């Protein structure tokens, strides 16, 4: 028979049974609580891991690219404005100044919609220059019929120098023989000259060869002209026709800024040209060249701000400046 004396005695005291019951299960309870805390912590860690993965896929630096993009767009826009003023209007700096000032609030308002502060303001006044354009007949000789003649002297800066040439008018040569009778553009700079000879190679190509200080010319680049007018962009290092385009990675512009520009063997080419020079230059007074007022450049302050980025810079915009 089981011993029930203790239980009976406890029941007689009237307290022991309940107290024992309450004491039981404490171990389980504490362990369960500890396990709960651990599992909740693991769940929080898992949550943190998922959040980290989420953050890892976010691009937190997009506003930097937008700031650079904004600057590039602004340079393009003001550059276009300057060129429009020079080519379609009368090349007055006041017009460019007024147009940039009119743009300022529009830019500000446009970007405010996207939560960014973006601004453009003119720094000083635009710099004036001269636009020199071919006004003669064919070929590229001056009014007196001279094949070698100087276009401009006393240059500090020049930009956007392009020639549109008729390939049929060019001499046929090779790079090595191009300095004999091919048409050339000579850049005089302190201590020497750089001449770009433009010729056809006899196999449907228009080529440019460069001679430094009267040395042997070396071909810089070539384009298949297809008999059509070909643009030689000397400041942009590029040859192009209506159908194709060639980058001249060896460069068509001298490393040192030229002080004067001359044409040599002008009888060996026909077409047109244009170049914008700074105000200090002394262009030829030959009637074969149109000398018109122009805006050389404009300097603008650019501001782009987001909560995480502040970018301010001052840019001089002179479209078509040598690279």
């Amino acid at each position, binding site marked *: *028979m*089981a*011993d029930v004396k203790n239980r009976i005695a406890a029941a007689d005291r009237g307290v022991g049974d309940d107290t024992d019951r309450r004491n039981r299960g404490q*171990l*389980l309870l504490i*362990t369960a609580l*500890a*396990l709960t805390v*651990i*599992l909740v*912590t*693991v769940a*929080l*860690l*898992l949550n*943190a*891991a998922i959040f*980290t*993965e989420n*953050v*890892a896929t976010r691009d*937190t*630096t997009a506003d*930097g*690219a937008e*700031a*650079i993009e904004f*600057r590039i767009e602004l340079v393009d826009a003001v550059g276009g404005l300057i060129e429009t003023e020079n080519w379609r209007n009368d090349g007055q700096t006041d017009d460019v100044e007024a147009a940039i000032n009119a743009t300022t609030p529009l830019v500000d308002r446009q970007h405010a919609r996207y939560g960014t502060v973006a601004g453009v303001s003119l*720094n000083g006044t635009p710099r004036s220059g001269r636009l020199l354009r071919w006004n003669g007949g064919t070929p590229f000789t001056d009014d007196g019929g001279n094949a070698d003649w100087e276009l401009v002297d006393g240059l500090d800066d020049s930009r956007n120098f392009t020639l549109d040439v008729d390939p049929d008018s060019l001499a046929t040569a090779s790079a090595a023989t191009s300095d004999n009778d091919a048409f050339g553009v000579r850049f005089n700079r302190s201590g020497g000259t750089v001449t770009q000879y433009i010729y056809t190679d006899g196999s449907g190509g228009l080529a440019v060869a460069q001679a430094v200080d009267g040395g042997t010319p070396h071909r810089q680049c070539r384009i298949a002209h297809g008999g059509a007018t070909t643009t030689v962009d000397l400041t942009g290092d590029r040859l192009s026709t209506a159908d194709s385009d060639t980058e001249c990675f060896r460069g068509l512009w001298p490393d040192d800024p030229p002080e004067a520009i001359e044409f040599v063997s002008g009888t060996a080419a026909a077409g047109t040209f244009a170049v914008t020079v700074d105000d200090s230059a002394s262009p030829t007074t030959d009637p074969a060249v149109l000398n018109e007022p122009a805006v050389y450049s404009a*300097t603008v*302050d650019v501001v782009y701000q987001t*909560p*995480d*980025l*502040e*970018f*301010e*810079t*001052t*840019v*001089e915009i002179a479209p078509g400046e040598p690279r």
Partner: protein
Amino acid sequence: MSFLRRDRRGVSVTVGYVLMLVVAMLMMATLLTAASGLMEGQSERVIDEELTVIGNQLAANLNEADRLAQVARADADTTGGSVTVRRTARLPDRVAGTGYLIEIGSGTITLSTTNPTVEVTVSYPETDVAIASTGQLTGSDVRIVYDYSDDELDVDQ
């Protein structure tokens, strides 16, 4: 009362009860040990992962500031105008509940925690503009400011 000392009835119930308690305690101890070990391992993994992400984000911000500084420097060299490049890298204060430290070296960013001890090194492409950062930074937002006169990116908080 001496008859009770000779009485062995009901002993098996007590022994069974004690055994049950011992087994239960062993089981719970095992469970707690395993669970806390799991938590510790997971915690280290999460911290490692978070520090790697933070390091990469800081590296991206440094390179972004470098690009902007290069553009601004080229402009300032041409125009002589003033330049401002200030970038704030938004970084968390804590990773998995613990603070951390950041040390920026040449081409590497080292992030570390002390409890638990985790260290992560993230590589980033060398910047064109030199980075000036002295000592360790506390894990939090970091400011990157371009100093045109010294041609360097100052990193501080």
